[in-house]
């Protein structure tokens, strides 16, 4: 009996030391980690909206979900860019789930008039050397979206060439670009019908997803 108590106390002691160590390190690094995460997302947003806004994208953001246009049960983050309080563009952060392997996290910047400002892939697990041509570092493919809208090309051509659309696919990889094209098209359709809401809904800085 005595031994059991002793053992329990020793284990508890180890746990207390471990926990206090973690609390200390967490307190020391929390600010820096938050700053790093802000830096990463700002760099990504900066690739799509370099200038032309005077608000803070990270604070003027809103989180929502919509099962008809985005994967079920997943949150979409909208970063709103404004100049003198007039809406300029919105950057949507969402996932494409019909890729070859897992989620493809995307950022799509849409101008107030509904044209695409640009699309970037934040993370994906597609096959290296085949599907990874969606990364801007690997190929120019993703830049094709710039300037496109639901009218240009028309709706039926919003598909990869294999499916009779106007977007290139890659040699040996159709599934990945198809997933990206489809997801971007749905995002544009969402924007078309919910533009008011996207720009007018109150900023949600509490946010349940990353900054």
């Amino acid at each position, binding site marked *: 009996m005595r*031994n059991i108590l*002793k*053992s*329990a106390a*020793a*284990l508890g002691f*180890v*746990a207390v*030391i*471990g*926990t206090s*160590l*973690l609390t200390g*390190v*967490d307190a020391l*690094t929390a600010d*820096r*980690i938050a700053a*790093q*995460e802000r*830096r*990463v997302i700002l760099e990504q947003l900066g690739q799509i909206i370099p200038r032309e806004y005077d608000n803070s994208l990270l604070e003027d953001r809103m989180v929502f979900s919509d099962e008809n246009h985005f994967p079920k049960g997943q949150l979409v983050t909208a970063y709103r860019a404004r100049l003198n309080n007039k809406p300029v563009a919105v950057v949507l952060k969402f996932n494409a789930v019909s890729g070859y392997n897992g989620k493809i996290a995307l950022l799509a910047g849409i101008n107030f008039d509904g044209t695409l400002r640009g699309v970037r892939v934040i993370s994906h697990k597609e*096959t*290296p*050397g*085949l599907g990874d041509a969606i990364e801007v570092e690997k190929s120019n493919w993703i830049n094709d979206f710039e300037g496109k809208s639901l009218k240009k090309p028309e709706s039926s051509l919003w598909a990869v060439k294999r499916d009779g659309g106007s977007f290139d696919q890659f040699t040996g990889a159709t599934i990945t670009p198809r997933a990206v094209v489809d997801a971007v098209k749905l995002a544009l359709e969402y924007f078309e019908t919910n533009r008011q809401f996207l720009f007018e809904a109150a900023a949600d800085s509490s946010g349940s997803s990353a900054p």
Partner: protein
Amino acid sequence: MSYRQIIADGIWQQNTGLVVLLGLCPLLAVSATVINAIGLGLATTLTLVCSNLAVSLSRRFLRPEIRIPAFVLIIASVVTVIQLLMQAWFHDLYRILGIFIPLIVTNCAIIGRAEAFASRNAAMPSAIDGLATGLGFLLALVALGAFREIAGYGTLLRQASLMFGDWGESMQLTLIPDHPGFLLALLPPGAFIALGLLIAGRNWLDAKLEGRRKQSVRQSNLTFDKAAAE
């Protein structure tokens, strides 16, 4: 056991990745490039040194029945601390290594060294053992990473900026210009094949060294016999 023996065991005789074959999951998953390999290797080494040290210092008051849960607590705390520090200072590298940093906890090599070595030895030898085991793992990772990166991309040290900042941009060595990219080397099957070749290479080298050692022993015996005969 001498320090020399501990170091030789950790790096060569009992190399975690190539002889004991522990921790294969991160070894295979994160070895597509040298920089990833170095990142995970250093994090694992640091974990091993800290956890061995902590286990060794607390070995007298950890009774056998709570030893394993206590080791798990210690290792998990150390890994989480390292994860937080990496997130704060090597954020981009952390984003690439991703889940494999927290998964260092599950690398059996670490609890293996805690149980087999640190729980029975003083602090200094335990720390050295952790360092040697970690370096052995790091070397296996880097060898595998170099092999796969050269075969797969034709380069060495690509994306070095993740670890060394802007300074790393110029570190990339292009060994095979206009390399078309060899997909197999970058995918999991390539990792298995490369690991197999690496283990075979190590065994071959080991057998050769062993043969030479035996020969020299035989020769010295011969001279000894001669001397005795005379």
